């Protein structure tokens, strides 16, 4: 039961298995669809004696995050999971975790914010928290959900980083969909050694966290977070390389490229849409269009250098986003824009909003849009299907 084995289970179970294998000691959570079965599964592990951890039941998500901030500050590896409105309620506490440099890990089951009440997939909940100093990954399948959770602990706790990490998995498409994935069991111990915090609360040597600081000292704290997040690009790549070697995976790094070597056109996306785009890429290739796909695995830190490198030589990028920054553009578009400016590069870009509110996205949808974009028939900022509304 304890070694590596392949199981068939949901994305939420994949998170729970990773939390168990990471030997997390404190979990605090409040139920919210579609996250609930993550903490239910963890509670079951604890009740069955398969996991030695404390589950704290709280009255809100704000309290859930506050509780694990407390346990992490005592030097204990901690976890929570939430979604949508629950994440929004946590917002204040998310700053406490990152600014206090507490490397907690949280799974976010990406779900639409209401109203209208909608429990289906949308990246918008997590996107509203992208500027807080959390490492953010987006999984495309249950194997990635499991692996990114473990990699997140490793990177977050790395003494060069010490920032919290959020693992994003889309509502239902991953959270409630079963597929085979390999769990690593006790073999994760060496990859993820016991948590050794850079600071902790100790009654014998009292310290104050979060006392009044001068503006100048506060600015230094933010700079340190900035530097650590920049450094995380290297540390994530290292952590992924070691993970590949130990567990026989073949992750490329902060991004995943597909048929990009000779591509004239690139699809840029994340999560399950990014994986669906690979199928679309094959279809488009069969029709003679030299298309490739770039999938962002880590959105924070934003892998600017990797993306720009792979887009070199491409004439057009078509971005597919499951969220929009209303009044501006999509969030990936914004970050691609800053990357292009910083690298003094120009590119023809289409930003496509698709899958919003949990609408299904099939490879056929992607194929249709990419063909239109290549023909030049697409507005730079395009809501999929809006011509018929």
């Amino acid at each position, binding site marked *: 039961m304890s070694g590596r084995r392949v199981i068939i289970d949901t994305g939420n179970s994949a998170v729970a298995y990773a939390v168990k294998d990471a030997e997390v000691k404190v979990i605090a959570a409040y139920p919210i669809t579609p996250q609930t079965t993550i903490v239910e599964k963890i509670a079951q592990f604890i009740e069955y004696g398969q996991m030695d951890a404390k589950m704290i039941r709280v009255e809100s998500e704000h309290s859930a995050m506050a509780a694990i901030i407390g346990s992490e500050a005592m030097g204990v590896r901690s976890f929570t999971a939430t979604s949508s409105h629950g994440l929004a309620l946590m917002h204040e506490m998310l700053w406490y975790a990152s*600014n206090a440099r507490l490397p907690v890990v949280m799974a976010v089951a990406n779900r639409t914010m209401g109203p209208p009440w909608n429990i289906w997939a949308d990246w918008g909940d997590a996107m509203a928290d992208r500027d807080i100093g959390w490492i953010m990954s987006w999984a495309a399948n249950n194997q990635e959900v499991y692996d990114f959770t473990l990699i997140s602990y490793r990177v977050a706790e790395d003494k060069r980083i010490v920032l919290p990490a959020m693992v994003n998995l889309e509502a239902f498409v991953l959270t409630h969909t079963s597929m085979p994935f390999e769990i690593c069991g006790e073999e994760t111990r060496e990859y993820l050694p016991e948590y050794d915090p850079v*600071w902790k609360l100790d009654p014998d040597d*009292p*310290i*104050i966290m979060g*006392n009044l*600081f001068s503006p100048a000292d506060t600015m230094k704290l933010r700079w340190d977070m900035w530097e650590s997040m920049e450094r995380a690009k290297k540390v994530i790549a290292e952590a992924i390389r070691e993970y590949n070697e130990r567990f026989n995976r073949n992750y490329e790094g902060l991004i995943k490229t597909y048929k990009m070597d000779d591509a004239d056109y690139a699809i840029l996306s994340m999560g399950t849409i990014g994986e669906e785009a690979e199928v679309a890429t094959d279809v488009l290739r069969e029709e003679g269009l030299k298309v490739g796909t770039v999938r962002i695995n880590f959105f924070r830190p934003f892998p600017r250098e990797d993306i720009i490198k792979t887009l070199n030589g491409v004439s057009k990028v078509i971005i597919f986003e499951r969220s929009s920054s209303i009044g501006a553009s999509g969030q990936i578009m914004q970050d691609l824009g800053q990357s292009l400016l910083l690298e003094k590069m120009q590119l023809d870009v289409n930003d496509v909003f698709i899958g919003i509110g949990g609408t299904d996205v099939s490879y056929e949808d992607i194929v249709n849009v990419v063909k239109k974009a290549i023909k030049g028939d697409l507005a730079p900022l395009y809501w999929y299907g809006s011509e018929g509304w």
Partner: protein
Amino acid sequence: MPEDVNKYLPLSKPKIGISGKTGSWRIFAPEINYEKCVKCHICVVVCPEASILLEDDRPKIDYDYCKGCGVCARECPVGAITMRRER
């Protein structure tokens, strides 16, 4: 306090009087009538400035830091603390 950590952290070491003698902010000063005091130590616990210390089981106000909020006088169950105007 973490040492040898190459990081800026929002941590500080508690130190008595780091902001100066805050007792100078006081307008009313608490005074304990030890004949009435029953040594319940409620005042010690409720003082938000931790300015009531124990000396041989008796509460003793540290006027260097007591800001004169009056919580102790309000909470004392036997009315042993009165607030006297200082200025």
